């Protein structure tokens, strides 16, 4: 009997969990700094040894887990995002559920990070999250099966209760759960540990899109070809049914990969290469002319100096990767302060430390230079993070759009213009919980929801798409098809004249282009009102909601109470839905000469100093109210006080001469006094002696 992909994983997992610890002496290790050559047997998801004739996919758990403590590794930072008991840590980039057809960009996280929504509350199952985002992460560890089921039930109950509260007798679908067909998305060790360029991330992505989770590691390593797609199997199919089992994907292994003894050479490294990190951690800036070309940018100054990502972002067997921010506590208990900017360059020694201070808090790790910050008042270290001046893209007058691997799937070969959702902006100079200004990336949520207890509760984006398909009538892209409709040729002739209308738009004059753009905007907004009002009505009817809304760029749209096919804007105190969701960033670190303030105080302490005066404008499928927000406002700095400071700094360089002159006079007077004292003593020696 063929068992399902997931069921068979539970036994070895349980065995491993029972047997292994972080420092497991029962395993066989080389314990050498030299690379251990991995000619190893592969084991499939059913824990059977793989031969060239096998058809089941290889399993990292059953293969790598034979010698390495998979269970411990699987709880590391990169894999524990779905585990409720894992540490939330400092907020990072959320999962942004993006659907261009419904103009959705919804920040999600199982970690309780500010301005993110819990996927369970939105009605998204773990399987849906894994399917949507699995191609951008190196593996997902799930809670214990019973816990996951309980949580899914809870999510279902929560969703039902929520809608019953608001709407009476709503019917909800159970959360989508196709693990029994797709198998688990195991931690794929070779994504990071294969030698640079040996792992095919795109093959992995394709398998995950096809719902072939358990087959992704085999495809990524190109051990063979995969035939079949789990996505073709219906939800209600019985995995025990033979006809269903026949539809399950099969592997045809590349016989050349197997040695005479049946082993396979796994060409791997202990320290992952930068290339592996880039698969999920690339960022591209989008300028006025689209995605900025790579050649105009420098790499992070540390990489330029020959370092590797993993020199700072280290981990032990527990795979709790050091994130590298000040004040970080690694779950391993190991002191990691000198793997942050400040700790590495300035040290983490207590103020009263003597020369016997422990090595692991001293500055200068790996030869890090000690910055003197000559002339920089120390208060800056209390108000600013290191990265505020040294990290992220060089600030300009306005925060620009950026694209990331996690949000935009960079790495997959696609046509991109830079305008694709989600609209992420950077750098945003705002404060974190430590009260310091850090550079951030950020985005305004855009989603469909309903009003509940004075707040907007997002609806399941998949449900929204299926219900609004008819009313929105968007094939691929809400923005292009609704907000920027192509003008009809008759309209173009009316606007530009018969001859000019025939020309390619590149040949239009600025005035003509502006005329057409104004027409497109007017048409787009009219279309938006009509279509969105229709879609909201559908959602209210189908889901029995009191008031459905669409949120974008900080504005909440609901159906107008007075007019048909029109919208009104709601004023709700709901910062989670309407404010920018931000998360700090650090890279790329710029060289000291390119840091903010390198040119002196007035680089920042002037009215147009970028760290305070650069702006951010709400962006997304819609531009919102188009009112730029100054960074100083985000930082909560009083505008008048800042201007007063700038006045003080305006004359600072001349004031230095005044202070120098004042000191000169006072020193001269002191000298005169000393001279007089000496003269007095010499003329009245007896007086001075008796005194």
């Amino acid at each position, binding site marked *: 009997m063929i068992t399902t992909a997931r069921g068979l994983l539970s036994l070895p997992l349980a065995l491993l969990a029972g047997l292994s610890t972080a420092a497991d002496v029962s395993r066989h290790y080389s314990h050498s700094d030299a690379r251990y050559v991995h000619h190893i047997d592969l084991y499939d998801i059913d824990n059977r040894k793989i031969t060239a004739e096998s058809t089941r996919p290889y399993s990292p758990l059953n293969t790598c887990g034979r010698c390495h403590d998979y269970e411990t590794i699987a709880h590391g930072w990169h894999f524990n995002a779905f585990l409720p008991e894992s540490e939330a840590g400092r907020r990072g980039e959320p999962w942004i559920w993006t659907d261009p057809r419904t103009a959705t960009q919804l920040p999600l996280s199982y970690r309780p990070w500010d301005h993110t929504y819990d996927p369970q509350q939105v009605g998204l199952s773990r399987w849906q999250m894994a399917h949507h985002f699995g191609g951008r992460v190196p593996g997902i560890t799930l809670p214990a099966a019973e816990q996951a089921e309980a949580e899914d039930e809870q999510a279902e109950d929560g969703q039902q209760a929520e809608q019953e509260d608001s709407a009476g007798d709503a019917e909800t679908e159970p959360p989508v759960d196709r693990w029994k067909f797709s198998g688990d998305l195991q931690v794929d060790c070779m994504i990071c540990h294969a030698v640079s360029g040996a792992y095919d991330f795109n093959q992995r992505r394709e398998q995950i899109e096809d719902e072939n989770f358990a087959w992704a590691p085999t495809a990524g390593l190109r051990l063979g070809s995969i035939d079949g797609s789990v996505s073709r199997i219906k939800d209600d199919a019985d995995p025990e049914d033979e006809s269903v089992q026949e539809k399950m994907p099969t592997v045809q292994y590349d016989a050349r990969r197997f040695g005479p003894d049946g082993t396979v050479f796994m060409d791997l490294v202990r320290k992952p290469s930068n290339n592996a990190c880039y698969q999920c951690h690339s960022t591209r800036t989008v300028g006025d002319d689209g995605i900025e070309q790579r050649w105009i940018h420098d790499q992070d100054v540390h990489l330029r100096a020959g370092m590797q990502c993993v020199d700072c972002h280290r981990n032990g067997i527990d795979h709790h990767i050091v994130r590298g921010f000040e004040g970080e506590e690694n779950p391993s208990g190991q002191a990691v302060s000198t793997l942050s900017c400040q700790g590495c360059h300035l040290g983490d020694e207590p103020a009263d430390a003597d020369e016997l201070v422990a090595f692991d808090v001293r500055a200068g790790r790996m030869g890090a230079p000690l910055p003197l910050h000559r002339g920089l008042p120390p208060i800056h270290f209390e108000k600013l993070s290191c990265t505020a001046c040294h990290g992220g893209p060089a600030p300009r007058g306005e925060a620009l759009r950026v694209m990331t691997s996690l949000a935009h799937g960079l790495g997959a070969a696609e046509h991109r213009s830079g305008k694709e959702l989600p609209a992420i902006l950077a750098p945003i100079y705002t404060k974190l919980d430590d009260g310091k200004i850090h550079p951030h990336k950020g985005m305004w949520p855009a989603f469909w929801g309903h009003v509940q207890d004075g707040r907007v509760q997002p609806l399941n984006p998949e449900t929204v798409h299926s219900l609004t398909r008819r009313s929105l009538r968007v094939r691929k892209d809400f923005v292009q098809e609704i907000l920027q409709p192509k003008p009809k040729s008759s309209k173009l002739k009316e606007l530009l004249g018969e001859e000019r209308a025939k020309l390619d738009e590149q040949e239009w004059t600025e005035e003509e282009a502006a005329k057409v753009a104004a027409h497109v905007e007017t048409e787009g907004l009219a279309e938006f009102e009509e279509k969105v009002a229709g879609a909201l009505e559908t959602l209210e009817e189908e889901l029995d909601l009191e008031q459905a809304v669409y949120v974008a760029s900080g504005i909440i749209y609901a159906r107008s109470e007075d007019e048909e096919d029109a919208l009104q804007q709601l004023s709700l105190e709901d910062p989670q839905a309407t404010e920018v969701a931000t998360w700090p960033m650090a890279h790329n670190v710029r060289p000291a000469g390119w840091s903010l303030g390198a040119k002196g105080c007035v680089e920042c302490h002037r009215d147009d100093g970028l760290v305070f005066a650069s702006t951010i404008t709400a962006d997304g499928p819609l531009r919102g109210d188009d009112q730029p927000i100054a960074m100083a406002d985000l930082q909560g700095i009083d505008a008048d006080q800042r201007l007063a400071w700038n006045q003080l700094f305006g004359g600072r360089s001349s004031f230095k001469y005044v*202070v120098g002159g004042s000191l000169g006079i006072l020193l001269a007077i*002191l000298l005169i006094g000393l001279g007089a004292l000496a003269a007095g003593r010499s003329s009245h020696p007896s007086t001075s002696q008796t005194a």
Partner: protein
Amino acid sequence: MFRILNALLLIALVLIVAVLAITAVPALGDGHLGGQMLMAHMAVSGALVLLLPVFAVWSLVRYLDPGRSTRLARWGFWTVVLTGVATIGTVFVCMLPVLGTDAMHAMIHWHGLAGWTMLPATALLVLGSFKKRGAARS
């Protein structure tokens, strides 16, 4: 006229030192200056930088002559000048691209000590001046 100017300069000095001391209170202990207090401290410190040399030059002859001032006032005057040099000097070097962060921390520490010492020095100066005037009246 001479006396009025003397008195005006002394009153201005006392006021400036008092405001500087008040605005420096948040820095006592482990605290640090910031926001409105720091701005006020910086603005008034500019006044001290201008006034102290004027006051010192104006009063120099008087405080050099034991016959024209009391011992208490002379002690006060020279301590004010000395602490003034230390207070202004420690900040002045911090304004120049010379010192690193640790040295600047040390300078700010010494700035605080010198600044707080200026307070009793100014008090001595005022007491000495009153004593002189009281003696002159009697």
